[in-house]
């Protein structure tokens, strides 16, 4: 299966990168962009599926792919990616 993980800086954490990108968008003549937050997107191909595998993936998201002190993650299992 294919797993998509999005990692974003927590709302409470300043994201200076996002601010710089927002400013760059404004310099491109689009001042309507009010705020930008920059995160990470990861695509993971996983052999196998099931509740146990998903639980392990959440563990990996918490322990390695994101730092819960400063980031939140969202994990999505893509439909149609099942392999037998």
């Amino acid at each position, binding site marked *: 299966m294919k797993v998509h993980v999005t990692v974003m800086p927590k709302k409470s954490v300043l994201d*200076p990168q996002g601010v710089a990108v927002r400013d760059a968008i404004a310099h491109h003549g689009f001042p309507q962009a009010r705020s930008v937050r920059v995160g990470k997107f990861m695509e993971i191909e996983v052999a196998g599926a099931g509740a146990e595998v998903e639980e392990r993936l959440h563990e990996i998201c918490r322990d390695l792919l994101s730092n819960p*002190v400063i980031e939140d993650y969202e994990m999505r299992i893509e439909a149609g990616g099942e392999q037998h």
Partner: protein
Amino acid sequence: MKAAVIRFPGSNCDQDCFFALNRVFGLATDYVWHKDTALAGYDLVVLPGGFSYGDYLRCGAIARFSPIMKAVREYADAGGLLIGICNGFQILAESRLLPGALVRNRSLHFICEHRFLRVEAVDNPFLNRAVTGQVLNIPIAHGEGNYTADEATLDELDRNRQVLLRYSDALGCVSDASNPNGSARNIAGICNAARNVFGLMPHPERACGASLGSADGNIIFRSILNSLGVSAAA
């Protein structure tokens, strides 16, 4: 009396740390490779600066899972003196051996310059030869040194006197103007509650002799040796 400098792929201040410990202070010092799994017989362990694993994912995030880190954690849990400098501090935070996290400097710039630091607490093995309020001139060199933690954690650090160094001006005045990277409460270095693990963004090993522009970093090494019962030569 023996020190270990841990080397990760991408460490680049390992030789500077070795120089300060071994050449300046005469301490027997070994390099320990990140794939090693044992840390026996050491009185001081240093996680040096650099860009371990290319800073991929987050600074220190991958080094945290190096084989040697299990031994480092056991060493720290047993009360051994552990100091993480720059990337070493990031690794300690990622390992949860110290609270909080180090994020991108608020200016987004990599900053490499001498900065003034005010000594906040001396009842610990890392600054026992300094006096509270003393100002040290020690360089920083980082892009991700902006210390972040929630308010409750920051309050607890203050209450327990775990903040050891803050960015200040030459007179020891701590303000937003003396904050190079946006760190919460101007924090430059903290220790754990047990006071045997110290993480700091500034590089004391780059301020270990007048020929380097400052010898103020030596007060940290001298304090460590003092707490280990060794009278320091330098």
